[in-house]
């Protein structure tokens, strides 16, 4: 069994991360899960959360992602997310602006669908603010 798996983090606009990693923790819709080489085949939805890439059994890189999907096979793990940010590169002011906007939107939201949309936006913005450098 190989020691690494190929991990790819893709946003609609571009490929954000692509490389071999030892382990990666992905925020699945029903709980975080770690992916090691040789993981069983899995397709999962994601909730807004933090992806952690491990090296030498320590978290090395962190990415904040919005909702999306993960496809896992024994050799690779592909995460598709509508938005992804590298934890170190988040602008605090920008994150707070987003949070404010999302909360405003949530207050005026009409209907379940819209409310759900803004709830997710708030969740993401809070994560961004918490992880801003």
């Amino acid at each position, binding site marked *: 069994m190989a020691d690494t798996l190929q991990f790819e983090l*893709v946003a609609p*606009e571009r*490929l954000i991360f692509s490389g071999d990693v030892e382990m990666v923790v992905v925020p699945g819709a029903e709980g975080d899960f770690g992916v090691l080489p040789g993981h069983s085949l899995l*397709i999962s939805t994601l909730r807004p959360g933090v992806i952690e890439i491990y090296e030498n059994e320590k978290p090395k890189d962190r990415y904040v992602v919005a909702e999306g999907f993960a496809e896992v096979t024994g050799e690779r793990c592909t995460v*598709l997310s509508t938005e992804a940010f590298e934890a170190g590169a988040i602008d605090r002011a920008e994150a707070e602006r987003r949070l404010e906007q999302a909360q405003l939107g949530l207050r005026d939201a009409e209907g379940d669908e819209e409310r759900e949309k803004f709830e997710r936006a708030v969740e993401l913005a809070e994560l961004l603010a918490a992880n801003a450098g």
Partner: protein
Amino acid sequence: MASLKDLRVRINSVRQTQKITSAMKLVAASKLRRAQEAAEAARPFSERMERMVGSLAEIMGEREDAPQMMRGTGRDETHLFVVATADRGLCGGFNSSITRATRARIKELAEQGKSTKIICVGRKARDQLRREFGAMIVDHMDGIGRTGGPSFEEADEIGRNLARRFEEGEFDTCTVVYNRFKTVMSQVVTFQQLIPFSPPAEAGAESGDGSGAIYDFEPDEEMILSDLLPRNLSIQIFRALLENAASEQGARMTAMDSATRNAGEMIDKLTLHYNRTRQAQITKELIEIISGAEAL
């Protein structure tokens, strides 16, 4: 005959036009490069999305409870066209080739007794289709990508809009019409069917490592699929918009290049004419002076 002054004015005005068109060409060229890069950068996402949907479709494809968005409604009555054009003109046949193809397709469907609905993306689509098919246009969106290329949020908005309309049973099939970027010189009008989902031909062959394998699903197939399909819709639209943006700049660049060249030719011709007229006038004046002197 035009006087010298008229000719001078004319030459100057053509020269001004040439300056504008050559500037537009340069702007389009630099925007084209950016649009092409954006289209290329977006490719990995849609490729992997296709792979994922493809492998799900393989599993779900034949099942009765597969979502309608994948199987279709089983009817073929109402067709929805998402017609994507530019907001601005001056880009050769870019906009009209899209609307012309759409018009032909709609007429074809009308002859078969099927009804059509249109969603216009981009101002030009609406301008050109409004007169003939005004009643069919159910929605329109302008100003896509005004700030540096189309963004995913904009595409997502259209995608959500489509998904909502589909769930309300407004249409049976959905096709997006856009210009595929082939080369800078040539753009191909493309009809891409979004609903029902048609798996890309190469997906089955390409997924060698996953084909036939049993995936685990979290939460479960239906949940994922019902989440994934609308998202796929947005992504396909996003890709169409990006291709369209690149095509638009390509078309504009070509159009402005030939406009600049035409203006150059016109200036040459007018200058020649101007010089001839000037010479004729000088000759005439000389003759007048000489014959005046002789008469004395």
